[in-house]
């Protein structure tokens, strides 16, 4: 009976809490968010301008047709407490800026994608251009 109550006590004395916060960065790459991409105009902005403004991409695909920039923002903090211990940590939201260039090295498309509460990098196939199905040349600078 004592063991039962001890187990019951341990069970009910453990807890987990998630505290949402305004998105903020604690480490990692500077975000390439909407604010940083206002200079991009479809069919106008060149690859040079993109590189000069945003720096090297984190991933280059399809023979420089697609650039990917990746950053993480803290969206919440979790706290786990149990009998005799506990842990606190950030929950990060990963975002990607995907830029596609045309034959003249001009921006033909760009979008920001986010994976809510996940830091897992989507598979490379996700970024494959529909126009260029050739094998991607993957380079991570």
């Amino acid at each position, binding site marked *: 009976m004592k063991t039962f109550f001890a187990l019951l006590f341990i069970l009910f004395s453990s807890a987990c809490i998630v505290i949402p916060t305004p998105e903020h960065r*604690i*480490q*990692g*790459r*500077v975000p390439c968010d909407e604010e940083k991409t206002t200079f991009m105009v479809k069919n106008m902005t060149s*690859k*040079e301008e993109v*590189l*000069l*403004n*945003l*720096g*090297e991409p984190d991933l*280059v695909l399809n023979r*420089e047709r697609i650039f990917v920039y990746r950053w993480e923002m803290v969206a919440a903090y979790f706290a786990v407490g149990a009998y005799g211990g506990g842990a606190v940590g950030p929950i990060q939201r990963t975002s990607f800026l995907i830029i596609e260039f045309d034959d003249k*090295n001009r921006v033909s498309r760009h979008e920001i994608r986010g994976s809510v509460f996940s830091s897992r990098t989507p598979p490379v196939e996700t970024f494959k251009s529909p126009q260029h199905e050739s094998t991607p040349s993957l*380079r991570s*600078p």
Partner: protein
Amino acid sequence: MTFLRRVLLLFIMLGSLFACATEPLDETFVSEPYVKERWLPFLADGKTEKNGIIQRLGEPTSSFQNGAILGYRLILVEEGRALQEEEYRKIIIQHDVAYVTPYYGWVNNRRKQLSEKGSLLTLREENKDDGLFDILTREAEYSLILIFDDHGTLIKHNLRRIMP
């Protein structure tokens, strides 16, 4: 009187504590203009040649448009020393403490030291493994983009701080 003295002392101690605890992060020594002037003064649009840059900075991290655009991933680290594991741990802990508290005294001091004795190290695939501790303890990371004309002369460049 003694009581008043104690209260006053307590206020002075608390005041000192809060004054320390609110030391702001000094971005002067890691700012793009400072780093450019301190370590990259040789870059001049319309003058500097590609070969000269490669001689100084080494092979680039990345290359675009058949070498017309070069990219350098540069990290700000202590110069000329092989970082040992113990020191690496110390730096990481000091950093975490600084950003959590937030008391940036240690970080500001390190940035000042790096501005005097630090170096900009070019990251490449080949040196990633050897310089792992350097990479993990970098004070700042930059992306330098260089655009050349057909003759290999620098026509445009920009340094962007990308981390932290």
